[in-house]
Every structure is written in C-alpha cells, then in structure tokens.
C-alpha cells in the first residue's frame, strides 16, 4: 500500500464562498484548512450519520463500522511504518 493515500493525504476542497460560514469576520474563516484528512472524514462518516435498518444489505448492527475502519487504518499504517507502530495512543 502506498503512503500517499494515508490519512493526511491532500485532497483539494473547493467550497463556495457563500457557505464559508459567517463572512463578517473573514480573517477567522480564512484559517479553514483546504484539505480534508481521511482520518477526520472517517471519524464522521463511519461513526456519524443516520443509522437505519430495514432491507439494508448490511446492517450496521452486524458489523461495527468503526472497528472495521480502525482495523483497516491500523493495518495499513502498521504496514507502512513497520512493527514498532503497533502501539496506539494508549499512553495518553
């Protein structure tokens, strides 16, 4: 797996000025980052959003999406960074 797709990978984020959120204080909103880190996106799309059941092909109750994503992330990062990276932020 290549390094460039990881986590802080640059993706240009284009937004229209009218939804930049409060235009009266331009200086404050100008600090907005221009790219989205994958890890920030996964925090939201995997743990947030409406959960519905019904005839969904894969019920979120069956698979813990967050666990899946973390496993995917950690596996790939470990592969990139070598064996020493197995330890997560447990010493926080």
């Amino acid at each position, binding site marked *: 797996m290549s390094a460039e797709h990881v986590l802080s990978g640059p993706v240009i984020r284009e937004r229209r000025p009218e*939804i*930049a959120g*409060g*235009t009266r204080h331009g200086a404050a909103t100008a*600090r907005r980052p221009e790219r*989205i880190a994958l890890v920030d996106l996964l*925090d939201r*799309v995997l743990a947030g959003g409406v959960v519905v059941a*019904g005839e969904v092909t894969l019920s979120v109750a069956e698979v813990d999406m967050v666990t899946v994503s973390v496993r995917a992330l950690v*596996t790939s990062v470990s592969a990139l960074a070598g064996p020493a990276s197995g330890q997560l932020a447990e010493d926080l």
Partner: protein
Amino acid sequence: MRTDQAGIWLYAVADRLPAFRLAGLTGIRDVPLRALDAGRLTAVASDVQLSEFGEAALRRNLEDLDWLEGVARAHHRVVEALAERAPVVPMRLATVYTSEAAVTGMLAERAADLAEALRRISSCQEWGVKTYADPRQRAQHEADAADRPAGDAPARSGVAYLQRRRRELSEQRDSRQELTDSADLVHARLCDLALDWRLHPPQAPQLTGSTVQMVLNATYLLDECQAANFAAAVAVLGQEQSCLRLDLTGPWPPYSFAEVGDGSR
C-alpha cells in the same frame, strides 16, 4: 446473475428536494444521483452494483483502505454538495438498499424522526476541534529539566539518580494534569458557543502522521452564523493555553449530530 443486481446507496435525506436540483451531480463511481420521495422527504441516492456493494462484498471492501477512502470521499462529496443546496441529514456510510420500495418504506416509517433531525440541524454546521499537546511546550520542559543541576547529592550517586527520577515523574504528572485541565477548559468554553457537541476518540499518532499526542477530538454543532465567532474563539484559546495546539476543521455537514429517534448515542 448476481453481478447484474443493482443496489441503492443512500447519501442523505432532505425535506423535499426536487430531482432537478440534483442535475449534474454524480455519486459513487460517477453514477448520476436520483431522488426517491415519500411524503415530504426525499432520499438522495445512486445505483451501485451489489457485486461490489452487497453485504459480502462490503464486508470485504470496507477493510481495504484504498477502497474505503475512495467511497468515503465520494459519499462526502455528495453530502457536501447537497448541504450547499438544502438542509440534509447525512446517512451513515454504506447504507445500501435493494429496492426503491424499501427506501420509500423506510422514509415513511421514520418520517417523524427524520423530520425532527432535519429541523434540529437545519442551518447548522459541524466544526471539529482537535486538541494536541503542544510539542514546543514539551521540548521546553525537557530542556529545562536537562539544564537543572542534579541536586545536592553528587551527580553520579544512586541518590542523585533517584532524586532526579522522582522529580521527572512528578513533572510528568503535573504536565499531564495541566494538559487535561487546559483541554477541559477549552472544551467548556467552546461548548458555550455551540448548540451541541460530541467527542470522537482521540486519533492515534500513527493515523494522523503526527508524533504529537492528541488530547481531545471534539466536534461541535453551530448555528452557521456563529462559525466566524467560533473560529475566532478557537484562535484565542489556542494562544491562551500555551501547552495546547488547537486544530480547527470544518465546516462539515452535521454528520456527528444526525442520529434519529432510537439511534441516540
């Protein structure tokens, strides 16, 4: 043949979004978006192949980071474009139905919850604030400790070692406590400006590509007219709390605040 079967991927639910407002927008794999209506609600969706997005395939593909990234970014691109057009409640990633009737049935069944969620997050944005231990501060602590004389006892004695070690441990405890206190204060101040908040688990340094410890991974629901004030407050707090570095992300569609009815967390 199974590979020919189509599924329906849901991006978000809106309050009656006419199909023409989706013109030109495409979703996952560049397939055009569709609007599925039931009552006042519209589910925005696109067709996907069950050979790739059916249950078995999803289980496999979700563990493939490249696949996950492509799909997550495509999903987000649509939700963000929709949020620019109308208030929307985002769906969780990988909500796939096998028929239009099942989608409209879900809309009808959950109509009250979804309408309530739409009302709650209408004209709102989500902004994330990641709080890190400031590495410059830590470097300064370490430099101070190194400069300090080893104590009264001769430098190489076991007593001196123990004294130094005890002091180091105590300083570590103090600085950890200072981090926690400062992060709590930042969070409390930001909560005052927000309509609601959620805490995500702190991201591991391995995932952020940073060696710096993340103390808090918070996200806030703001009235969109509060966004500039909020950003300014984050900047001020970042300067006031010298042991922390604050990282603001957003605006996001209100993913973290989209729970409905019994889905409360």
